[in-house]
């Protein structure tokens, strides 16, 4: 199975870390993975995106022109990436940050109100995990256990206490689609 994914939003929304956790989960399952950030002077408030590829076969290019899935967290990213989802592909977006919803009919569009739900659950800092949960419900390319192991690997030890909350957020995200 192969998934070519773009995750895009504002810096500080956890775009890069969502991608990193997904890539790590793939690594744990022995898959081939690449994680390619659009790096730059971007900081909190600027735009940020990352291309993640998870594949059973070796990966050719870490840079792509079209994607199987786009996870979109803000309006500028919607404008940039809606057109780059492959026909039949998946677009997941957070309703909070989007003023003009996507219009394409040849792709599967899912609105997930992750930010609103996160605010209600007091999990606002990990609303990205809700979106990751929604994604994994639609495309179970890695197991939840692998995601939890990946969190252990990527989070500094002092934050390991937050892993149960992350798990809760992922499960909530799975319910939302």
């Amino acid at each position, binding site marked *: 199975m192969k998934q070519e994914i773009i995750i895009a939003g504002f810096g500080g929304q956890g775009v890069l870390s969502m991608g990193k956790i997904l890539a790590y989960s793939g690594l744990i399952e022995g898959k081939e993975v*690449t994680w390619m950030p659009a790096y730059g002077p971007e900081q909190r408030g600027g735009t940020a995106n990352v291309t993640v590829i998870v594949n059973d076969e070796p990966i050719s290019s*870490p840079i792509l022109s079209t994607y199987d899935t786009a996870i979109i967290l803000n309006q500028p990213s919607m404008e940039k990436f809606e057109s780059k989802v492959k026909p039949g592909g998946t677009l997941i977006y957070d309703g909070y940050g989007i003023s003009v919803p996507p219009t394409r009919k040849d792709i599967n569009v899912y609105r997930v109100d992750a930010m609103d739900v996160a605010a209600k659950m007091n999990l606002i800092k990990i609303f990205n995990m809700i979106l990751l949960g929604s994604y994994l419900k639609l495309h179970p390319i890695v197991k939840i256990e692998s995601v939890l192991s990946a969190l252990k690997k990527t989070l500094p030890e002092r934050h390991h206490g937050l892993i149960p909350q992350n798990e809760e957020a992922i499960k909530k995200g799975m319910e939302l689609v």
Partner: protein
Amino acid sequence: MAEREITLMKGNEAIAHAAIRCGCDGYFGYPITPQSEVLETLAEQKPWETTGMVVLQAESETSSINMVYGGAATGKKVMTSSSSPGISLMQEGISYLAGAELPCLVVNVSRGGPGLGTIQPSQADYFQSCKGGGHGDYRLIVLAPSSVQEMADFVYLAFELAFKYRNPAMILTDGVIGQMMEKVELPPFKARRTEKEIIEQCPWAANGRPAGRKPNIITSLELDPAVMEEINIRLQKKYAQIQENEVRVEEFMLEDAEYAIVAFGSAARIAKKAIEMAREEGIKVGLLRPITLWPFPIKEVEALSKKVKGILSLEINAGQMVEDIRLAVNGRIPVSHYGRLGGIIPAPDEAVVELKKLIK
């Protein structure tokens, strides 16, 4: 270490970990995007507490490369890393290192120029790396990794070749491979060489003269032109030997290919994707990837030009390696170039379009 350690890391981090593990004695550098993680990772790892490797942030790139000169003169395994503008600042030192025949490793995680340019990826330093950069008739051994795994492996290879030929080696990479995270199996630990081993393996080094031995002099200065010509002739013989023995390439889907893309580093990854896409449309195309940019794979490109009908040089620059390809092809078949400039990376589908233009 018996256990295989497979992990996920950035190319820049892999360079730092490989440096520690390969028994490097000293790193001297100065931060610059997109290579700063090399120095950051070394600072986090604190190898001075484990292997004894020195890690020093110098006050500039100029002093970094001169610290490399000093360390290399004593037979130590030393390195620096920077990105394009910083590498330009080092060129005087690199020429001196080549002139004094000192082994070392210089890593260039290049970015778009000219000038201060951009921090986005570029391959526009091919000319600088392979055709001089500094002054004088010299060559660097230039390796171009195209994966995070090769970033780690080529640190080992670069030092091996640098010491084998007493010549500076360069890893020429860019922001794509430097910033990307991929699976990597870190190579096994090698202990740093002892003083005794350095004396045995580097009889030329200035590391304390035993009684009765003539002084070892490390210099690139020779005012007598007759002697200087002799030195140059000796250097050229060495370069010819490297050209003969050290060319490395990767071939991908070339067996039945009617057309070929030649690309290095990150562009070679994009080329592989373009080849997958083109083959879905029935176009028989393959890739020749120079791993050594210098020595350039002259014979391999020449042989390729007798096999395929046309070559596309895919580079993230305005057309630099294509000059070497055309020399090797010598007019036998059409050779075209496609590249994006200033930090824009060519997408795989753009390469397919260019390939179709070549076929028409």
